[in-house]
């Protein structure tokens, strides 16, 4: 594991940050507000706390596989056969997830930007870029992340400043109208966005240069992303109100359309779409890279690069198949996602940890017997 690509710690934070906000900034407000109503912003804060707890758990778990990939760890804990089976399930999850994201890109562009262009062309082009991203590896992606981070932060700052005149804080009133229940209900549907997606970042762990700082860096990246999602949801509520947010496909996009400062600064929706494109590119490229690593490992290939183009083809068609229409994806995210992603993000890692602890105890027990 010596000749592996290495990324610096601030590059790691950047990647985590971009990964966290990718896709969530456009979808999350809608899903949260669906049940959370006026108090959705509280839900987002609650989710952030739970997400950080989850990250702390991941850091604890990651201590057991220090310099190795997560899938290697799965196999050392569960043995070669069961381990390979679980790894295969993970692989399927990765493929499904990345094709969902790709389908989202297609849906978004073809419903708000260019309506006449066939969705296959849009997704195909995007898939091509992602293949390039994955092909050049994690180091290149990390440097790209460093390059686009200032742009994204600048765009966010502009957006939030320009949105202030449109925001009406009284739309958040009354706070806790129906008690705590809707908050928990909406937390259940929205926790998966983006916190149950974080475990995919395990593929980055062996690449980080200074391992001792890795845990804190992960926490920082997720926290920054969570804060951005909080502000986006808060502004969506203050600008559009809860009904207005819940009834739109892309509330954050519509929200930026309302910006009009002195009739000169208008039509800033391109700001948001550029943020979204850049972040989702980083996200899908990372996942795609992860897929190729998994396949390389599962089938004992020499290089992960040979599988990229065929994988791209699979991804292109599975994403078309996965989102036959706009609402299908939303329903999937709102109903199934928490359980499906939860299995891979929480349940299996917890099982692994439990198995390892039991194994250690057994060893200790054996040592006792031998003494």
């Amino acid at each position: 594991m010596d000749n592996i690509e290495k990324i610096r710690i601030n590059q790691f934070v950047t990647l985590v940050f971009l990964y966290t906000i990718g896709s969530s900034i456009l979808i999350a407000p809608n899903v949260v507000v669906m049940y959370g109503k006026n108090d959705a912003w509280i839900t987002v804060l609650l989710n952030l706390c739970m997400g950080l707890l989850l990250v702390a758990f991941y850091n604890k778990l990651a201590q057991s596989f220090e310099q190795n990939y997560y899938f290697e760890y799965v196999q050392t804990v569960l043995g070669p056969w069961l381990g390979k089976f679980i790894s295969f399930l993970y692989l399927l999850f990765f493929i499904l997830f990345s094709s969902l994201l790709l389908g989202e890109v297609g849906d978004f562009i073809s419903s708000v930007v260019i309506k006449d262009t066939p969705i296959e062309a849009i997704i195909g082009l995007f898939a091509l870029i992602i293949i390039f991203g994955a092909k050049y590896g994690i180091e290149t992606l990390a440097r790209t992340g460093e390059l686009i981070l200032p742009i994204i932060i600048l765009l966010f700052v502009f957006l939030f400043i320009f949105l202030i005149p449109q925001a009406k804080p009284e739309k958040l009133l009354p706070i806790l109208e129906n008690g705590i229940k809707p908050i928990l209900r909406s937390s259940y549907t929205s926790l998966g966005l983006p916190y149950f997606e974080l475990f995919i970042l395990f593929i980055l762990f062996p690449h980080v240069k200074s391992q001792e700082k890795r845990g804190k860096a992960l926490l920082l990246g997720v926290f920054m992303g969570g804060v951005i999602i909080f502000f986006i949801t808060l502004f969506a509520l203050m600008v559009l109100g809860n009904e207005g947010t819940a009834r739109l496909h892309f509330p954050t996009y519509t929200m930026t359309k309302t910006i009009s400062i002195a009739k000169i600064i208008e039509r800033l929706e391109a700001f948001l779409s550029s943020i979204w494109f850049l972040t989702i590119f980083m996200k899908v490229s990372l996942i795609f890279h992860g897929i190729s690593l998994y396949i390389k490992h599962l089938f004992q290939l020499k290089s992960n690069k040979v599988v990229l183009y065929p994988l791209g083809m699979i991804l292109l068609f599975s994403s078309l198949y996965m989102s036959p229409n706009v609402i299908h994806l939303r329903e999937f995210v709102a109903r199934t996602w928490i359980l499906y992603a939860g299995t891979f993000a929480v349940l299996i890692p917890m099982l692994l940890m439990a198995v390892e602890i039991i194994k250690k105890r057994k060893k200790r027990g054996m040592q006792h017997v031998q003494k």
Partner: protein
Amino acid sequence: MKKKVALIITIILFLTGCWDKTEVDDLAMVMAIGIDLTEKGRYEVTLQVAKPGVFGKGENGGAKEDAFVTVTNQGKTVSDAMMQFYATSPRRVYLGHNKMIIFGRRLSEKGIKDALDWIERVEGLRFSNYIFTTPNTAKEILKINYGIEKIPALAIQSNIRLRYKYIAKFTPTMNVFIDRLMSHNKVSFATNLGTEQNNLEILGTGIYKDGRLIQYLNNKQTQDIMRIYNHVKGGLILVPCKNNPKNYTSFDILDEKTTLTPEIKGKKITFHLNIEANGIIEGTQCGEKIMTKEKIHQLEKGVSKIIEKRVRSMIHFSQKELKTDILNYAELIKKKEPGEWPKFEKNWDKVFPTIETKIVVKSSIKRSSWVKDPIPNKEKNKR
């Protein structure tokens, strides 16, 4: 090397330009959309389209030709009517520069929500489009030439942007209209555009309840209701003189602030409406010195009295005549006293007319422009 050349050639093949490009002179720029309902219940859409060729001419005393054309089509839905334009127009109908949307009277009374749905979904329309209503049909309105400006839609747009100084800082654009429609009382406002001797004129405001037109207000009433919503930032108050009630002192509002708070004691709701108006004196007909402490005080009192009277009559109108909560009271109770709201929610329609509003108006005259006192009246001085 060979690979690179092949790649470049393939890329060149695909990058010949946008396959669905549209040149500016292939577009029909729609400046205003009017939507009516015919007697048979069909949608009638009228577009005001700019004629770009006319812009260059005219100044040098050329033939007087309208700089716009209006075209009308009917259909079962708004999209159906629009489809006729797409099918018959020699140029691509482009809505990106549209400035305003007018709803005709029959459609307004029947409900505009269906038309609004099209407006929200259609490509190109901006959220900053102004929403208008009219007592006539939209078709008639869009055909009228505005006089000094070439395109009526642009003229009305400029006019409405200036209005906040004189009426209220409230311009019902598309996003504001929809936002108000989804508020608790479902009341939204649209500017009322009518004709006066074949001239376009802004008559006031049309009030929509749940997408249906329920009432027209004139410009003065518009100012009064906007006072309650804290949107008035300008306007004129005429105070009658003490010595001759037919003469007036003009008080020009520079800034106004309204706060409205509910107070609930048991089953009784009281609203406290506080208005603070600042302004200057723009002129007096009273023919006497006005810049004394007492006179200023008197004038301020007079202004407050008039504002209070006007607002009170507006509230009375809403509670007793219209019997509709156009004042946003329900939402204020819900937001500020969420615990009390369920008590009134069920029979709000009965509770609303009985609500008492306590109005306190404080107005202050800050300046009086360049002049302290008016030109002295010689005849009076002789006496």
